[in-house]
């Protein structure tokens, strides 16, 4: 006896699906040519840098940047799958693989800052002033002090793994090695609360500093450089289906903008007012080998 209602509800459901699809398509048609999907690491968003750069770019070009801030691993994976148009990441070794595979083009050095090892002020492992990060990690391990890791395959996590390798240690999750699986900001908070050491990019550390008692323990080593590159995803490597949805011109415009004198100046001045030092050093046109000299 309730057949009729069943049909009715199915009809409503169907109409609604159509509405949703309709909305989506309209929205897509209206914004198709202007939207550029930028997959990037969390540090560029959490430091506030992108909030300075993107409005200038949008104003100049009329493109609309959709920033998806994830770890560098995830951002590169989005590029590999063609889900993003342009990438801004900080794991040169992994980026190189995409460049070699032809998945990304127009690969440009944008800026750098550096990684630092921070830890509780009383420094239980006694690593303050240690010459190399690898040595510091050895001391942390030997003194059974806590190290808090990102554990999320981000650029920072990739760097951390490299440093452990240099120290000849394979860390195992346990009482003295925790993985948060979260962004740098959250991981710093965990390290702060659990009185642990962690590896962080200087920008996020400075931005979070007002909430932290953690202090910088190790810094300045060349291998701790944190280098950011921008690159556009190459539509030729994808099926027409996916490539058709990419915004290659927009991606190119964004790459060109980041290495332009205007953007480089914004990057160089960013954070000076608040922290007394820049959070990032502009590097457009330089080669990676020139950095840190």
């Amino acid at each position, binding site marked *: 006896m309730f057949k009729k209602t069943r049909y009715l509800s199915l009809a409503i459901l169907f109409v609604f699906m159509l509405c949703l*699809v309709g909305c989506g398509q309209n929205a897509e048609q209206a914004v198709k040519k202007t939207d550029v999907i930028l997959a990037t690491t969390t540090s560029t968003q959490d430091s506030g840098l992108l909030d300075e750069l993107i409005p200038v770019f949008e104003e100049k070009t009329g493109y609309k940047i959709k920033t998806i801030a994830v770890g560098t691993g995830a951002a590169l994976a989005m590029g590999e*799958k063609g889900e993003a148009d342009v990438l801004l990441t900080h794991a040169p070794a992994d980026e190189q693989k995409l460049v070699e595979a032809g998945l990304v083009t127009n690969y440009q050095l944008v800026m750098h800052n550096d990684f630092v090892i921070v830890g509780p002020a009383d420094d239980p492992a006694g690593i303050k002033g240690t010459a190399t990060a690898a040595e510091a990690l050895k001391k942390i391990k030997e003194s059974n002090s806590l190290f808090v890791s990102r554990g999320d395959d981000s650029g920072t996590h990739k760097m951390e793994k490299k440093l452990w390798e240099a120290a000849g240690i394979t860390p195992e999750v346990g009482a003295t090695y925790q993985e948060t699986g979260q962004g740098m900001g959250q991981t710093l908070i965990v390290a702060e609360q659990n009185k642990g050491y962690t590896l962080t990019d200087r920008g996020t550390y400075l931005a979070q500093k007002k909430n932290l008692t953690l202090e910088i323990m190790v810094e300045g080593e060349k291998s701790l450089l944190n280098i950011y590159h921008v690159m556009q995803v190459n539509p030729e490597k994808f099926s027409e289906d996916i490539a058709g949805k990419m915004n290659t011109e927009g991606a190119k415009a964004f790459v060109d903008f980041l290495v332009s004198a205007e953007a480089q100046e914004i990057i160089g001045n960013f954070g000076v007012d608040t922290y007394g030092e820049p959070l990032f050093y502009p590097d457009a046109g330089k080669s990676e080998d020139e950095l840190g000299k």
Partner: protein
Amino acid sequence: MQLIWDGLVQAFFILLNLDPEVLEVCWLTLKVSGTATLVSVLIGVPLGCILALSRFPGRNFLVSLANFGMGLPPVVVGLWVSIFLWRSGPFGSLGIIYTPTAMIIAQAVIASPLVISFTLAAVQQISPRLRLHLLALGANRRQLLWNLIKEARLGLLAAVMAGFGGVISEVGASQMVGGNIKGETRVLTTATVMEVNKGNFDVAIALSVILLALAYGVTALLTSLQQRRSNYE
């Protein structure tokens, strides 16, 4: 303690100054979660009624599915909706990933089982004698259903509130399918997470207070609707 106080003060000033950025986030939160709730009501109430009033093989299984769906983890929904909506996914051609529409779809998926289950419970607990009574009075099917829904309205409004409460508070799905894009898909929950990551705890606390106030405001409105109408009759 200082932090909490700073956060509350910050919340007060944000509200007082009507900070346009925060207002935009609030408006988007209401729009997305409100639309998602509406969609889930349009899907869930009819389905809940059908499940409550009809008997067919497999019905118990469907009911258990709906009840199970009440606890559907938002991140799981977010992941699956993302997979479907990505450029490489089956619905990639719609181009709606990282838009409010995608968030509405994900939130509707989260809220629908809640609405179905609450509706089912509300309609099924009406005395079967009322149905016979209405039929005996000569009600046609539409009148019958309408009267049953009226009878179940307390439970149905509870369904709406549960659905809305479920989606306005979730962060996992919104983050994944929306991407927390400023001015577009940034809602109160994803903005709160971001402010914590930025180290702006006071702003995060302010946003959380605003979110609670907003959620309470809507729920209070629905509650007054629910209670007032039940006093009439």
